């Protein structure tokens, strides 16, 4: 008996034929799909002025803002003074381009930054609570009634589809200018996004403990509280911390429509073209956002490690 070379097997040739045909069909599909995507991208770029020539024109000017920032406006015919020079950097409040000159309103900024962080904490906490409660009736595998699932889901969708800034702008009318409108706006958006994420986590819940509680006569509430929540809590909190980081950034921007925090001040100084103050605020925002991101990441990882 001689060993048959595997490629001489007629079954192999038949397989090769069919496999080849199938692959040609798949390749054609892939090429067509990509062609359509590229065509649509080109049309979109043309409509939105995303043109190579414009980008090339703009790139050399990116540094312009910093050029203005690092120089005094030559209003009275004086030469621009580079800002990062030791002789004047540690000068007093009256010395242009000194740190003290830049940050002469640091007390106001810090108070506003603290307000911004508080806005983020409050809105995340409120949004977490609401999303937590709404995620259970929004989960198909937990609820028999299609109407309840449908209703809750559309409700969550509505909350996250309205842009936060628009929502804050609307809420500034009834609640007045200040952080309250911003907190409510971010809390509503947080409810919508976290609710959706929690709901997705819930869909993957292990049904064994839920069945266990149900078979022992536990009510729907008991099934959720003891069958679902223990498996889901670490995932929920991890998502909430990530959302908190996002909300710190959101709450700086939301002030632009008068909804409190550092953003409101940032908009004012931008409006007056006070470059030093704009830069001071932007630097402070960057610092606080990076600090909170780092801290939150640490907590999140420790959390996942402890709960996994």
């Amino acid at each position, binding site marked *: 008996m001689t060993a048959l070379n595997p490629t001489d097997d007629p079954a192999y040739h038949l397989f090769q034929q069919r496999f080849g045909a199938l692959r040609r069909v798949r390749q054609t599909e892939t090429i067509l799909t990509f062609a359509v995507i590229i065509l649509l991208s080109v049309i979109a770029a043309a409509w939105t002025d995303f043109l190579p020539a414009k980008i090339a024109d703009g790139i050399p000017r990116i540094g312009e803002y910093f050029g203005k920032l690092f120089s005094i406006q030559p209003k009275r015919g004086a030469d621009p003074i580079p800002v990062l020079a030791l002789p004047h950097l540690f000068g007093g409040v009256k010395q242009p381009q000194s740190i003290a000159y830049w940050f002469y309103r640091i007390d106001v900024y810090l108070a506003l930054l603290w307000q911004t962080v508080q806005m983020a904490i409050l809105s995340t906490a409120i949004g977490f609570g609401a999303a937590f409660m709404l995620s259970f009736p929004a989960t198909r595998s937990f609820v028999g009634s299609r109407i309840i699932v449908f209703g809750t889901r559309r409700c969550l969708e509505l909350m996250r589809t309205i842009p936060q800034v628009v929502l804050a702008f609307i809420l500034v009318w009834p609640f007045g200018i200040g952080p309250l409108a911003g907190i409510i706006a971010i809390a509503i958006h947080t409810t919508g996004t976290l609710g959706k994420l929690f709901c997705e986590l819930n869909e993957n819940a292990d049904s*064994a*403990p839920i*069945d*266990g*509680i*149900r*078979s*022992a*006569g*536990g*009510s729907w*509430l*008991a099934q959720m*509280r*003891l*069958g679902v929540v*223990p*498996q889901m809590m670490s995932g929920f909190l991890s998502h909430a911390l990530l959302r908190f980081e996002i909300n710190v950034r959101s709450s700086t921007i939301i002030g632009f429509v008068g909804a409190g925090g550092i953003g409101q001040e940032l908009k004012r100084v931008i409006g007056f073209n006070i470059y030093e103050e704009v830069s001071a605020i932007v630097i402070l925002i960057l610092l606080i956002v990076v600090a909170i991101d780092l801290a939150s990441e640490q907590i999140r990882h420790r959390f996942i490690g402890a709960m996994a």
Partner: protein
Amino acid sequence: MLELVDLSRRFGDRAALQDASLSIADGEMIGIIGRSGAGKSTLLRLINRLIDPSAGKILSGSTDVTALRGKELRAWRARTAMIFQQFNLVTRLDVLTNVMCGRLYDMPAPRVLLKWFTPTERALAIRALDRLGMAEVAMNRADALSGGQQQRVAIARALMQQPKILLADEPIASLDPLNAKLVMDALADINRRDGITVLTNLHTLDTARAYCRRIIGMAAGRIVFDGAPEALTEPALREIYGQPGQETLDERITSTSLAAAAIAALAG
């Protein structure tokens, strides 16, 4: 006295259980045997009302169990405690809390939300665990236990429900032989000492013969055998386990015992 009258359950167009009629006296220990998909699990889940029947009735004394709703339904579920192949504990919670979950059926909602159990409930739970030799791991998280230990915690939870009937769905299918024996002995003890009716699905015939005075055989959603283990002759077994065209059936192929399986392999 539990009575099933022409009980049927369909999943889509597949009949998982067809016209099952049974009469079960208080305090019986019954083994249900049959191939996978024969409807054994469906039968137990129907009795516990985890799923609803498509047709037929379940009667307990003069109560129509199939008509129970709300609080009464939950009380019925508590009285017909279930044990699962995969234990179905809340693995992220400690053992004691898992056992106390057997009391959820009559706990007010605020206590459920706060996981607030009374000293009496804690004492009962510890006693149930102690009976199964599991008291010293009461504060461990359930997922830190072995399969055999988890199943005994599940039995403690079932006892906590103070049931009249215990429904065990393949309680030993995921366990090693030693733990399987511990679990089956515990079920037999509960049946004998507490007078609790035990209905257990088993996929090994020798276990059913060793522990049960009455055996129910199921095939393709129907009850095809109901009688004492001695009455399980070869024709009866072929009806339960056999495939069409298969001439003989070696009983030892359903055994978990290594020796028997080895003999069967040698003989075959």
